[in-house]
């Protein structure tokens, strides 16, 4: 883990999805779990992988590759589920592998260039470069669909 200094005010968890590198603000990550069998939900959207038992609560798991319209790869034991926390709701994101935790300055983040008709554009909040590799910083709020509202 990179050294934390006063100037480095942001920590990112980087991971691989369909051989591409993505990252999330580590503050939204609750835990990382190994792959377990999911129980599929009938009639769910394709990216919705199913639900798993997270210490007694039912956790929906989303296939991040499908969500980002990337080619879905075979699931194997090396896959991990990143449990994220957004607006009080926990969601699991199925990714290929977790790579690293990097500390950086917020200034190092660059907004993605405007590219229309790119389905991913809206979920990628920023870009950054670590060791010459481009890392996409995901906008969690755009990835995890807003939950259906309760009674009006």
């Amino acid at each position: 883990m990179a050294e934390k200094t006063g100037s480095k005010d942001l920590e990112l968890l980087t991971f691989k999805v369909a051989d591409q590198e993505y990252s999330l603000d580590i503050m939204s990550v609750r835990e990382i779990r190994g792959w377990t069998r999911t129980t599929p939900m009938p009639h769910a959207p394709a990216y919705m992988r199913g639900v798993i038992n997270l210490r007694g609560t039912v956790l929906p798991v989303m296939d991040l590759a499908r969500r980002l319209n990337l080619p879905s790869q075979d699931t194997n034991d090396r896959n991990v589920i990143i449990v994220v926390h957004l607006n009080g709701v926990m969601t699991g994101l199925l990714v290929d592998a977790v790579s690293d935790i990097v500390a950086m300055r917020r200034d190092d983040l660059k907004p993605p260039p405007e590219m229309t008709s790119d389905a991913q554009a809206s979920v990628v909040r920023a870009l950054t470069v670590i060791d010459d590799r481009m890392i996409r910083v995901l906008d969690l709020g755009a990835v995890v669909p807003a939950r259906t509202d309760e009674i009006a």
Partner: protein
Amino acid sequence: MSDQNDPMADIRASFFVECEELLEALQDGLGSLDDGVGDSETINVVFRAVHSIKGGAGAFGLEHLVRFAHRYETVLDEVRSNGLTPDHENVKLFFRAADHLSDLVRASRDGLTVPQDAGDALLAELDAMLGTPAETDEASAQVEFTPLGIGIDLGDLDAPFDAGSAPSTRWSIRFQPRAELYETGNEPQILLRNLARLGTADVTCDVGALPLLLELSPETPHLAWTIALDADVSEAEIREVFEFVDGLCDLEVSLALYDDNTASTAERPPAADVNAPAGVTLPQPDTAPQDMPAPPPARRAAEPPARSVVRVDLERIERLVNLVGELVINQAMLAQSLVSAGLSPHSDAMNGLEEFQRLTRDIQDSVMMIRAQPVKSLFQRMSRIVREASAAVGKEVRLVTDGEATEVDKTVIERLADPLTHMIRNAVDHGLEPGADRVSAGKSAEGTVRLSAAHRSGRVIIELSDDGGGINRPRVLQIARTKGLIPPEASLSDTEIDNLLFLPGFSTAESVSNLSGRGVGMDVVRTAIQQLGGRISIQSESGQGTTFTISLPLTLAVLDGMVVDVAGETMVLPLNVVVETLSLGPDDVQMLRPGAELVRVRGGFVPLYDLGAMLGYRSRRTDYTGCIVLLISLDDGNRAALVIDGIEDQRQVVIKGLDDSFFRAPGIAAATILGDGQIALILDPADVIAGCLVPLPVDARLPDRSSKEERLEHG
């Protein structure tokens, strides 16, 4: 005030909890007054509730609350002390004032503000009811103070020493209020009157400390009272009267020497006589001039015996419920591992496990009972909705409630409030005809909305019915056709037409304004009920009214379930819907039309549904021979046959909600955790079948096969 470090915050929180109870008692009392079953004690209960709220509010400096409660209380006091019987209109006014009071309580709790106009208007009405000029605010009352006669008639005080009465014990009480007592909204007058109820009291007002009017500081109390009380009571009982002002006054209670009439009237300073006809200008800011004739006789005996109640933080109960849930899951795991260890079912371990299961069940039932609450509080809220809705549309509506004592899980009660509110508004607005139409239809002008709750075969049934015109089916059909919700040529049964109201999209602004039936957001209502694991159905009779029936599980925590296998997935069906299980023979299944099959069950025909295909787990079967079928009964009395792939077990499962996930799968009520730690989905069969009847969007029906295959590899 809501600061966490504030030591008052806890006390304040418990005050608001108490307020809820008092408001409930208030509503109750008003309810019995309205029904004409209340006696003189009822108005006292109502009065006490308002008074206690006022007292507490004063302690927390909630001025708005104190001001309103004070004047509400004054009016109620007039009514009770004059022995007036409030008529229907009066009670309605009291109800509205009670509603406003609860608004104020909630606003104070949440730190909101309530527009004062409503309160002022209500106060004006309350004052008008008594025919007395409206009381002005205390603040202005001091400015325009005119010396009025205060008739604080303390009943028997006039003749305290009548011959023949053999007083038992004489107490001498000296009571000197401090400024805080008035600031917190207490009134010595009421305390003194309560004291007088204990026995024969001779009250002397000590005006010795009263300064000249010029030097009088209106905020500082100068009066003290000396009371000689002849009553067979203990000191504790006397102190109990002053319980609420403990620390706010100087109180001395002592046994007086019995020296016969020493405090004779002649020695009393003239102005001190509480019965003085006029001229005493009380400097206390809170003691607004009032006319208080004869107090009611003491009615302490009429108090119902206090139940012993523990107030527990809901979170602790939640924790207990969760732990019990874990216990049930662990017990299932244990059972599973014992079975897989190859133990004989007659071994000691298995017998012990059985006993363990029984105990777990008992614990679970007891814990659930802690969470159960009578639906009364919910119904009371609904009576307010009826009052407001009927006032808004100008209809006379009476709410009749039944089965208020029916106990339901607290969460269910809380989450029922919104849908019920919605339905009640619908019933008042659309269900009941305007008064004139009712009269011409031969009904009474006053519409009736009936709300009832009952336990029926392990579920809670809540019925909401009105005696209105019923659903205007041709109109509903027409709207559904115009909106393209049903094909124009479709012919629907009456029940099917009624159920159109639950279709999303049926409720749009357009249809609300010109629809004489119902349909305002009923799909939202149904979704909410389904989220509670419940179902809703309609019965309507033209000209007779409409009844909505909500059927809910008793608890949201456990379920007796049948664990079945559907296309390799373990799923749970509520046991209470399963009527019987069948194994299909080669000739049992008949085709009705392509894609629709029937199964013959003892002379009857039951529609057959292939569960695996309906859930999108696999394609439809072509041959049902040898399949296992669950015959289930639906709420509307119909039956259906579900094809499954195997029955695994029958056991109690802990319900884990799915509502926090962003996707609600049709037909899935909840989930549970199996003995092996895996999650199994709990089916709502009625919803599965309903989902089958209403065609889903094509893409949503596509089964996600790829993930399924991978799962099988790894599972």
